[in-house]
């Protein structure tokens, strides 16, 4: 966690200013301003339909015609092409892990290294030795990363045969392999039981601790938010409702007022889905 005077001078990993997104007549985000420091894991919470996933989509360029500004370490990414944004280092996982079912877990993880693996299509035809060297190196890195997260025994398994929990974890590994400069996670623990949720939390802490990657995490499970994140951004109806350090926000009266119905309901669900 930060706290030195110098931090104020470092550009934020992600800064969003007056971001507004409308789909037809529906205003999904209204004038959202927030920033994520390079040291933090920030949770984005709020009831369904609050615009959390839209915020992530706007940051990584999947929402056309967003108004306002999105900056990544000072660089303006607003309405840029998603592939270009990804290449500047914005990584992302999806709520429903979009894996290539017919490929192995290792190949899926390597897919995330598309921008960093270091050879081109032409190389694949004319420079086979370079390709096999880079592939080998990438495979070793991917295997190491899977090992770090305790998933290496699944490396050769066809992704389509994985259960939901492992799928979500592989999606996160895939997003991490290219060492992004910021990682966006969309409900990484949804649909998981308590043990798997804990593992996701551990993964997030390791990504932050080992690789120093800041994260923006859309989450519903407050136990995970409390355990792992540093700050909380609360959205309601497309606007920022509260913002601040995790402990402070989650214990505050405002939080109980604005998020209460869903949040505590979810906490209860958390307790009962002890699979």
């Amino acid at each position, binding site marked *: 966690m930060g706290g030195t005077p110098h931090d104020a001078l470092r550009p934020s990993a992600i800064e969003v200013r007056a971001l507004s997104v409308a789909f037809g007549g529906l205003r999904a985000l209204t004038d959202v301003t927030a920033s994520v420091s390079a040291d933090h894991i920030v949770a984005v919470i709020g009831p369904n339909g609050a615009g959390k996933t839209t915020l992530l989509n706007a940051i990584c360029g999947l929402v056309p015609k967003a108004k306002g500004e999105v900056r990544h370490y000072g660089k303006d990414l607003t309405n840029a092409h998603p592939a270009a944004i990804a290449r500047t280092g914005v990584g*992302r996982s999806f709520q429903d892990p979009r894996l290539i079912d017919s490929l192995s877990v290792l190949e899926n993880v390597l897919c995330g290294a598309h921008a960093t693996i270091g050879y081109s299509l032409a190389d694949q035809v004319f420079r086979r030795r370079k390709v096999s060297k880079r592939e080998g190196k990438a495979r070793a890195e991917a295997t190491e990363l899977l090992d770090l997260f305790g998933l290496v025994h699944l490396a050769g398994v066809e992704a389509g045969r994985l259960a939901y929990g492992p799928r979500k974890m592989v999606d996160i590994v895939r997003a991490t392999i290219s060492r992004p400069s910021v990682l966006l996670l969309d409900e990484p623990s949804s649909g998981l039981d308590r043990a798997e949720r804990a593992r996701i939390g551990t993964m997030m802490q390791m990504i932050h601790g080992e690789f120093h990657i800041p994260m923006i995490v859309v989450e519903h499970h407050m136990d995970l938010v409390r355990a792992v994140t540093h700050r909380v951004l609360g959205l309601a109806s497309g606007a920022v409702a509260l913002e601040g350090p995790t402990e402070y926000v989650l214990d505050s009266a405002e939080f109980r007022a604005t998020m209460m119905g869903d949040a505590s309901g979810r906490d209860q669900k958390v307790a009962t889905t002890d699979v």
Partner: protein
Amino acid sequence: MTRVMTGTESVAPARAFDWRGLIQQKYLIILVTFLVVAYFTAAGSSYSIFVLDTILLSAIGAMALDLLMGTGGQVSIGNAAFLAGGAFATVWASRAGAPFPFDVIIAGIVCAVGGLIVGLPALRIRGMYLALATLAAFYLADFIGQKYQGDTVGAAGFFLKPVFTGTIGQQSASWAWLLFCVVAATMILISWLRSGRSGRAWRMIRDHEIAASAMGIPVARYKLLLFTITSAVIGIQGGLTAHFIGSVTYDSFTLTLSISVIAMILIGGLDSLAGPLIGAVIVTLMPVVLPDIIGLFVSSSNASQDASNYSEVLYGLLIMVFMIKAPTGLAGLFRAGGRKVLSRWNASRASSAASPAAGDTAVGSAPRLR
């Protein structure tokens, strides 16, 4: 389907002897093809060599179409357009003075450009709408071919001088070896493309296009590359066919032809290396083999006259069956069967090690892409 869990249970690390690590799949297939060609050119009748040549020709385009549809997920029913394009471009280049094989190479380049153009609508259209757009490309190619043929030589069509000398049988045999080289080269090229970074990119575009761009994959560029490359290969098949048959008429390129190639890749199995070859063999042999089979059941048949109709019925049925029930095709079914055998073998070998829940953890199950 048993699901693989993580973490707590231990998985028996004893891997089965993975013979696929020893020799890459494509070289195995090339070796088998070599042996088949060697056998038939040495010992087969000239008719059987001719049939072999047709199979080899079909295999070229089938492999390309599988890269486009199976790996890349781009639905195209207009591939006959590029067969026609390749054939007519070869004729045109040949008449302009280019000798074999340069006229075919030129045709390949022309079709690459054509593929690039056809790929442009594919950037905005997908699925069944893309299928319609490729149908438009087919009619356009058909029209151009018709006009070109009509304006130059008329209904009789174009004729090309034979490439090889000797008797029909010797020519067929020479073709067999030439086509073997082309098939082998195509297979190697396509295997290089469908594995590694580009293979993963195309599959990601196929399965989750939006997520693909969020991963840094330039979707438009890869789609255009895919159309360009596959159209060039199909065009080369068209050009080689033109020389092989010796004549080109626009009405030999029909929608039925497109459908038959789709049948090949579906029967063989989408997104597989061996699938297009398996499919090419089966679909090409149908009109050859079916009349005899039917003759066993129906005494009165002029089955050979109706060979093409019987074939159409059969591969039409197979298209439906495989598309609906088994899109991984025969190649996929073999793989699944092999996996079952392999995992049962593993299970019995590892029975001493503690391996409780994950009984079906597939060892070496993922198709190893090279």
